């Protein structure tokens, strides 16, 4: 589709030239033509230069990150990724606890957020009466508009008492024997951060999944329905199967959002550098470590923090590549604005 565009545009340009020639041989037109041509070139150069500058900006940031983290890269090499300690006194920095914390909280977020989001997407695309679809998706996407610091405040003021008083004691009582719920409930922990992330990824995952489901041709549904399938069976067999790569892409975008979220996580995760499988222990993610430690860091520690930035950049790169493979170009607008129209 994109290629078609290009050809048409180029053809258009050529045709314009020839059209002008045939229309008149007047000098005014010639002047206009040359002005138009050089105007064209000038315009393309101008716009291209600005666009190029954004690309340069990205490369500048990357170059800066790498040159600033080189001290840490040279010191720790790949061992940085598996180092378990982050100690200023010893000058030893390892990113494993934070990679671990990021993965664990994001896993909670995906485990809770993705099924809910897919449910929402199915409801909005397959089940809901027409009049409710737009208002409802509009409301769901409001979740994306709330600033993350307000999520954090809400988690501290409203979610935390609920976790400490009811949810976590219950989990400890019934699942305390598993390694995931050992310890004392305190409400500032990986579970709290995971829950907040789950809520925060819902608008992204739900709206992209909804677009993926909408993109399924009606003939798929009609075929299943005409075979006598119920609506559930139609959705499961004909629609979800068809849209699975799109939904998978949506999950990856949600994961990307969870990986990079900073403020809400910093306010809820408890900021402990220890590795612990228990969800009710505090932890730290890569982004929250930067927020917590950047101010104090100098020398090697600063380089190590910037290396975390490099890791996050690589993750953003991978997320983008995967999401692109899964989604194709059409759904792009949805994820970059954090919610479609």
């Amino acid at each position, binding site marked *: 589709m994109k290629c078609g565009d290009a050809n048409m545009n180029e053809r258009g340009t050529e045709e314009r030239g020839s059209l002008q020639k045939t229309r008149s041989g007047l000098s005014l037109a010639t002047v206009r033509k040359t002005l138009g041509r050089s105007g064209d070139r000038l315009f393309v150069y101008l716009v291209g230069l600005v666009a190029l500058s954004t690309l340069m900006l990205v490369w500048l940031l990357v170059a800066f990150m790498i040159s600033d983290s080189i001290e840490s890269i040279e010191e720790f090499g790949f061992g940085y990724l598996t180092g378990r300690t982050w100690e*200023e006194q010893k000058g030893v920095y390892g990113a494993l606890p934070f990679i671990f914390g990021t993965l664990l909280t994001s896993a909670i977020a995906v485990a809770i957020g993705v099924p809910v989001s897919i449910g929402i997407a199915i409801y909005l695309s397959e089940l809901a009466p027409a009049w409710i679809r737009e208002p409802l998706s509009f409301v769901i996407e409001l979740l994306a508009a709330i600033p993350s610091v307000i999520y954090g405040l809400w988690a501290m003021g409203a979610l935390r008492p609920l976790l*400490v008083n009811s949810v976590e004691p219950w989990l400890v009582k019934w699942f305390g024997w598993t390694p995931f719920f050992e310890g*004392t409930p*305190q409400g500032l922990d990986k579970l709290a951060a995971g829950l907040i992330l789950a809520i925060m990824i819902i608008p992204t995952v739900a709206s992209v999944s909804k*677009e993926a489901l909408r993109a399924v041709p009606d003939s798929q549904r009609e075929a299943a329905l005409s075979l006598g399938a119920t609506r559930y069976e139609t959705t499961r067999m004909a629609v979800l199967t068809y849209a699975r790569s799109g939904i998978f892409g949506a999950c990856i975008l949600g994961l990307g959002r969870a990986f990079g979220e900073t403020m809400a996580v910093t306010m809820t995760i408890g900021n402990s*550098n220890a590795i612990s499988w228990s969800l009710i222990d505090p932890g730290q993610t890569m982004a929250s470590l930067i927020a917590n430690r950047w*101010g*104090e*860091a100098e020398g090697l520690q600063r380089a190590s923090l910037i290396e975390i930035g490099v890791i996050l950049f690589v993750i953003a790169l991978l997320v983008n590549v995967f999401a692109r493979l899964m989604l194709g170009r059409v759904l792009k607008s949805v994820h970059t604005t954090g919610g479609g129209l």
Partner: protein
Amino acid sequence: MKEASTQSSSGQREKIAMPHRGGNRAFIIIALVVVAIVVIAAAFATGMLSLGSDKGTVTLTGAGATFPMPLILKWADEYYNETDGKVKVNYGGGGSGAGITQIKDQTVVFAGTDAPLSGDESSQYGLVHIPETLGAVVVAFNVPGLATLKLDGDTLAKIFMKNITKWNDPAIVALNAGASLPDNDIQTVVRSDSSGTTFVFTGYLEIVSSEFASIYGQAKSLTWPGAIGASGNPGVTSTVKSTSYSIGYIELSYAMQNEIPFAQLKNKDGNFVVASLDTTSAAAAAAGASLPAGGGDWSNVNILNAPGSDSYPIASFTYILVYKELYDDATKLNKTAAEALVDFLWWMVHDEAQSWADDLYYAPLPASVVALNEATLEALTYQGEPVL
């Protein structure tokens, strides 16, 4: 890709059929409203800017320790009123380490820190220490039915090292004759972030327990055994409050404000002392005589486990760091700003400002320390000339 192209081409087709006019006007109105708000804000801003520069306002920026932050912010606010809005002091937290880093980077003109610089560092950078207030770290606890608790340093260290794990451990019972101590596990609560509070607390444990000194030692953050980590003084405070049979260390001001019980500690003279502003000041007064000059080596200064019958043992100075020579190409600090900075610091360590400390549960400086600060401030220079 197939579903993609279907979707978009159908979208385009419908777009063509759609009338364009209606919504555009509303859009332009919104855009205009936003632009108007922004322009009004800008006009307001520039208007005040020109007013501001006429009056010759000075902005001083500092960063660092979060422990004295409430007090410094309060001072900034009062000083702003005091000077009729001519001097604005901004203080960003970030922690003691952040303050030191930033004053070395010269992104701030003063820094707050709980841990003094080493002698080498302060002479290399030409920084002086100005102790501006005193704080105490208290051991808050939450044991249902228990209102007072007495502890000594060794027992406290053992509790946080998990050598003592029950509330009715003989060591605790011996210190609290007659109290009903339950047979419950002690849940320790610690700071999970890097903090000056932890630095002071571990400094005390290091002095009173050789075992703690050999295993852990003084640090801004530690990997504590079996403890709940909570972020910031507010985090530890609320965690202790919400967790039965827990014990944790917090700043005195947070304990007072939040009305949480805290333990009496046995001081060097063998008395059990309740942390208060008076007992904190007493600890400082006891050490006051032996303090170095502002430009000297402060790294060995501590008023932990200070002598004196009323001295609270976990007390600490917190410092402002400034350059001895305030002129520097990099800081671009002009003479007016340098004077304003020194005036502010002078005001800060004296009576009126120090009385604000009381309200926020910081201990006022003893007279000996104020005198020391006066000498330090008088020695500050701008291009070689004394500022005061």
